[in-house]
């Protein structure tokens, strides 16, 4: 399970990049992307997904329905 960034909304401010505990966020062609396979929804690190909490545009870092919800390993 993972978050994704809605490219058309992203201002490319890069605020999310250093906040991601998984180093899952990278710039690509003027916008930012989350590597789904690296994203843990911040579970195990923080109470809230950091990209969502820091993003200046509402509804830009959103759940990617293409992936199942992340399960923290017990």
């Amino acid at each position, binding site marked *: 399970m993972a978050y994704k960034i809605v490219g058309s*909304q992203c*201002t*490319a*401010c*890069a*605020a999310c990049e250093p*906040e991601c505990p998984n180093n899952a966020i990278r710039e690509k062609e003027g916008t930012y992307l989350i590597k789904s396979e690296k994203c843990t929804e911040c579970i195990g690190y*923080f*109470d*809230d997904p*950091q990209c969502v*909490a*820091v993003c*200046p*545009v509402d509804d830009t870092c959103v759940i990617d329905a293409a992936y199942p919800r992340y399960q923290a390993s017990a």
Partner: protein
Amino acid sequence: MQDDRQQLEKRTQNPTAECAGLVFGEQAAPQGCSAGGNGRMGCGSGAGRGDLPPEIWEKIRNHPCYSEAAHHHYARMHVAVAPACNIQCNYCNRKYDCANESRPGVVSERLTPEQAAKKALAVACAIPQMTVLGIAGPGDPLANPEKTFKTFGLVAQAAPDIKLCLSTNGLALPEHVNRIKALNVDHVTITVNMVDPEVGAQIYPWVFFRHKRYTGRDAARILSQRQLQGLEMLAERGILCKVNSVMIPGINDEHLVEVNRAVKSRGAFLHNIMPLISAPEHGTVFGLNNQRGPTARELKALQDRCEGEMNMMRHCRQCRADAVGLLGEDRSAEFTTEKVMAAEVRYDVSARRTYQQAVESERMAKAAAKQAELSTCSGKFSDIAIQVAVATKGGGRINEHFGHAKEFQIYEIGTAGVKFVGHRRVDLYCQGGYGEEDVLPVIVRALNDCVAVFVAKIGGCPRDTLQAAGIDPVDRYAHGFIEQSAISYFKDYLEKLERGDIVHVPRGDGAIRQGAYVAA
């Protein structure tokens, strides 16, 4: 290079004649402008040194953003290396980035620290009066600490005579104060819009602090506590700190008097109260809710109230975070990344020094002329104070054609002296593609509180329009020094009143145009 710099500083250390310039309130300032002084402080940042402590004056005398006297002569540049922000303000919207947009926080191009450093050198070579490099965004410099400090480090290495400054919302300030000190950043500006969380909750929807988003009063409480703590830490380390406040009528206009007291007691040396920029096309919360900005009279009344407490800054242009040049001009288009990276730059400190020495002699001549004019009207007393508008390209002279002026500088004159009180933008502003307004009515509205407008030259048609609006178009002081001319005009004005040639009628209010200054 360091020696050169020290020598230059020594040469300029003698108090110039300008320092003795007469400014409102100056005589009544026995305590000095230092933080914590109790005296009235309508001085320093105004026409000259006033009674600022020498060490502070020496730091700001060539800084266009901090010294009104310097902003006529010296230029600054902002490099947009800091796109990320850690708070959300209701007057800011990071989503729009229109080329015609001109607000703080909006830039057309973001730079890497390496690009920014090269741009700084290229600009410093082309514009010898460029003395200050600032990082103001477009986000918050301290939400991008690595990019910000790397830029400062590169510039300090290549051009140690350039002063460094930054402007922050203060949330991340306490943890970076030591690094700011270590990098020899001379000036820091903190934007403080409130000290009461109830007020703050109406301005800040959220802050991102220690891995968590806070909203409402919690957000405002954290932000305020961090801002004031950061301010105290700067003051303890001897770093000059200016406070910016955005005046939002009905939300924090009355409250800013309290903010003024709070920041003064914690060591801020200058307070800059700016009008809210708000229009629906900006897409900000305030813009969409039709929150209005203050009128010129409301802004001046608040600045005057706070001036009894500490130095007020009135020449702020609310520049974009990538502005280049003198305040009131923007030459950023000449220094695009493409051009800068292709250019070969050789930093020549001696050419810059020669130029800056010429500027110093001009400043002294200007101050001497003002003193001479003042001495001719000693003994005259009147309760009347008037405002005049001035078309200027810089240098403290009336040297701009009326029709070419993108803004006018406003001076208040009374028998107590002459004081710069602000500027009015009149440049055409893109109205979201719906065409442009006719400029003459815009100018009349903007200068409505002035009795006269001083210009180098003016055409017949605008002359008639101004006269019909009760504004005297004056070209007899063309290319003269502004303050000297203003005093001379006021002397004539009083004489005409005495003879009964004219009647003094209080003027109306002036309109503040929306949008940060950018001469496109």
